């Protein structure tokens, strides 16, 4: 069965410092991995995805994620955090269902707090 783990409920970082939000996964077959961000009272917004190719994936708002197959991880990173990055971040994995339908499993989320 597919699963996603986000081991940290909350991450605190000072503005200007690098940030990392952790994600590990369990999937049968090739991993298709995603990061979404959720701001208060809003739906989830797509940040980036890993399907194949380069292990370092670049996404929206300066975020990037590093895929590590041996460690089954897909950590979200940003070199310099902004206060406006404060939000809830979700990692997700895709399962290929019957007839190639996509089914997504989400982690429990990590709250990122960036302090001025």
């Amino acid at each position, binding site marked *: 069965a597919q699963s996603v783990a986000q081991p940290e409920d909350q991450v605190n970082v000072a503005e200007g410092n690098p940030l990392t939000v952790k994600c590990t996964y369990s999937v049968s077959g090739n991993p*298709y991995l995603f990061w979404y961000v959720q701001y208060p009272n809003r739906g989830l917004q797509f940040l980036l995805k890993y399907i194949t190719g380069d292990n370092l994936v670049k996404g929206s708002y300066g975020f990037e994620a590093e895929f590590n197959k041996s460690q089954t991880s897909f950590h979200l990173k940003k070199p310099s955090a902004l206060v406006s990055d404060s939000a809830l971040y979700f990692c997700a994995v895709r399962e290929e269902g019957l007839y190639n339908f996509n089914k997504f499993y989400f982690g429990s989320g990590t709250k990122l707090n960036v302090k001025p």
Partner: protein
Amino acid sequence: EAGVAQSPRYKIIEKRQSVAFWCNPISGHATLYWYQQILGQGPKLLIQFQNNGVVDDSQLPKDRFSAERLKGVDSTLKIQPAKLEDSAVYLCASSLAYQREAYEQYFGPGTRLTVT
């Protein structure tokens, strides 16, 4: 382009009452998802439509939840009768197609349901 629309944004009902949520996906998006997001958890897929057909409803509590997508455009999710544990945010998402290349989901703002 217009995003995914959902209504109402908030709903408070008593247990055993019924409630309905409406979703209008992005124009041209063939795939529509309904997720349940309980506080402190990631979104959990309830049902997935491809046009007006159900692709996956394996996690939908069918004794009380129902959903339809008439004409393959907007969709309604209903709960009857509601239980306390149904208190959650109900998210609607859409994507271009179900096939393996179409991964990015676009989420609506959600409907926050409180059952008292």
